[in-house]
């Protein structure tokens, strides 16, 4: 079997020509249903007259005679509308299936179950309304309150569009209109003199809008959207501040080939392997959640019908945001993921990409890039993953153990400089984050390195833990 055969065979259970044949049959049945109904009703009426009494007491046949203003209320006549709707829906799903096969040819896999997602009929008027609103931004006097309210109205309209309607809008907008919207939405410069001079959408609102559109747009429109909403595609720039630390040359953005699924064998803490980004503090939290509450990880990521991926992250108020990213990942010169994760399943890589897009509390002021998630505190990532506050713990063994036994994820950090005993040398990294993986029967704490399962776990006595670790944070995965 060729690679191409393997690609299209993923949808072998859905025979599009046969389904389209069924659609044709459904439409014919819908068309003939009223006539059939009238014919049966006429035969029954004639029979009633000829026999001088009810010709049948069967509820199904009696109901054929029931109508309001000549409109049949029961089968077969009343089936005309539903049969047409089923035919329309099946036709749209066939169209979608064929788009999915095109995506697979480009190496983008979409879960086959998504092929049967349906959406309502597109409404041209809704698309026209959105285009007019965006065109209306040209030369508009926004008044003393600035433009944020107008932008929020437009964002709400755009997010309410179906895929087909969005397709119309993006095709109808001129380059100038798209550029104007992009500039207004992204205008967050603050002069400090005028409270209304930075009225673009705040970071997370901007990502909500860009991500919502990205989740519905056709692949051909992704680059247009990433230009309109720059934050939705984070540059892969780890260690880029001084150009001295970059470790990965020749990184390109693409989808791994052959196609790799989001999940291979469910969620496990063993799935996480840190790549070329210094985000151990974030990945240690991901390891912790995956270990303690794998379902939370599974529920927090979804593939969209157009092949994009959405990850649920939370802002500082605990509000959930589905952060949508394109399926492309940073790949090394051999086509393997250069960031977090591995080659068997991609959920970790997409969590990292979405977090790079979303994170807005970097100590160095970076936002919307992989650089922004390098090096941070052990208690900061948990709330982004769970929407629940974290707690800064003392490096106290008993306090840490109590918190762990309370079901919380514990991330612990090592100091920037520390000499350790030889027995820890192969697993202890300074200036690094670990996640508590449990406790041994003889009372030692077990610490896991987010670099991956190839690296040894640390087992430390209470005294050793308090000596060699300098920070700890905890957070619950659920209430």
């Amino acid at each position, binding site marked *: 079997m060729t690679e191409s055969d393997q690609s299209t065979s993923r949808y072998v259970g859905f025979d599009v020509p046969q389904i389209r044949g069924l659609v044709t049959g459904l439409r014919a049945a819908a068309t003939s249903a009223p006539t059939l109904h009238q014919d049966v009703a006429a035969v029954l009426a004639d029979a009633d007259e000829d026999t001088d009494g009810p010709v049948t007491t069967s509820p199904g046949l009696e109901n054929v005679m029931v109508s309001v203003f000549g409109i049949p209320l029961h089968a077969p006549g009343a089936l005309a509308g539903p049969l047409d709707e089923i035919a329309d829906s099946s036709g749209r799903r066939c169209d979608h299936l064929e788009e999915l096969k095109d995506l697979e040819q480009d190496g983008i896999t979409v879960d086959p179950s998504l092929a049967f997602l349906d959406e309502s009929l597109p409404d041209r008027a809704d698309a026209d309304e959105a285009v007019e609103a965006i065109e209306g931004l040209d030369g508009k006097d926004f008044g003393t309150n600035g433009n944020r309210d107008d932008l929020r109205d437009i964002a709400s309209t755009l997010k309410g569009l179906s895929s087909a309607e969005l397709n119309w809008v993006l095709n109808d907008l001129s380059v100038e209109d798209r550029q104007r919207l992009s500039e207004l939405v992204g205008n967050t410069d603050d002069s400090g003199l005028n409270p209304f001079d930075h009225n673009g959408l705040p970071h997370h609102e901007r990502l909500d809008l860009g991500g919502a559109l990205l989740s519905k747009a056709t692949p051909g429109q992704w680059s247009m959207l990433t230009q309109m909403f720059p934050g939705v595609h984070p540059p892969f720039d780890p260690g880029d*501040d*001084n150009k*001295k630390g*970059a470790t990965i040359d020749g990184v390109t953005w693409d989808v791994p080939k052959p196609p790799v699924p989001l999940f291979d064998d469910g969620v496990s803490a063993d799935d996480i392997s840190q790549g070329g980004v*210094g985000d151990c503090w974030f990945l240690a939290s991901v390891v912790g959640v995956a270990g303690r509450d794998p379902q939370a990880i599974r529920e927090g990521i979804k593939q969209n019908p157009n092949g994009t991926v959405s990850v649920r992250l939370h802002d500082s108020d605990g509000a959930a945001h589905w952060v949508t990213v394109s399926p492309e990942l940073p790949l090394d010169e051999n086509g393997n993921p250069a960031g977090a994760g591995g080659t068997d399943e991609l959920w970790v890589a997409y969590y990292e990409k979405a977090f790079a897009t979303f994170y807005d509390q970097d100590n160095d002021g970076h936002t919307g890039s992989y650089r922004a998630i390098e090096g941070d505190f052990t208690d900061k990532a948990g709330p982004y993953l769970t929407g629940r506050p974290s707690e800064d713990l003392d490096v106290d063994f008993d306090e840490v153990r109590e918190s762990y036994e309370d079901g919380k994820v514990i991330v612990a950090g090592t100091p920037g400089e520390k000499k*350790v005993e030889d027995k820890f040398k192969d697993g202890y*990294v300074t*200036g690094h984050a670990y996640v508590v993986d449990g406790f041994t029967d003889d009372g030692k704490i077990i610490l896991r390195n987010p*670099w991956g399962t190839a690296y040894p776990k640390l087992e430390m006595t209470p005294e050793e833990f308090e000596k060699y670790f300098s920070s700890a944070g905890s957070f619950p995965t659920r209430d």
Partner: protein
Amino acid sequence: MASQQIRVRRRVPYWLDNATRDRALAVMSFDTDTGSVDLGYLAEGTNTVHTLGVGDRLDTAEASWRVTEIHPGDEGYVVLEPA
């Protein structure tokens, strides 16, 4: 593998093969007193730590490198050249 200069950053494993992620170089710690680095070489399930200064060689089963730069600090890194 050791055909080019590589930079191993603090906190970041330098995977020698991203496909398998079973072999890597990694900074375990810096010693600012001596100017040396504890560099881990992971292979076959074992992370062997070597204390190295500038000019020292790191010989492994698959390649040899020479340490040409050591930059300790929070965003520290080590530069290795093929030996």
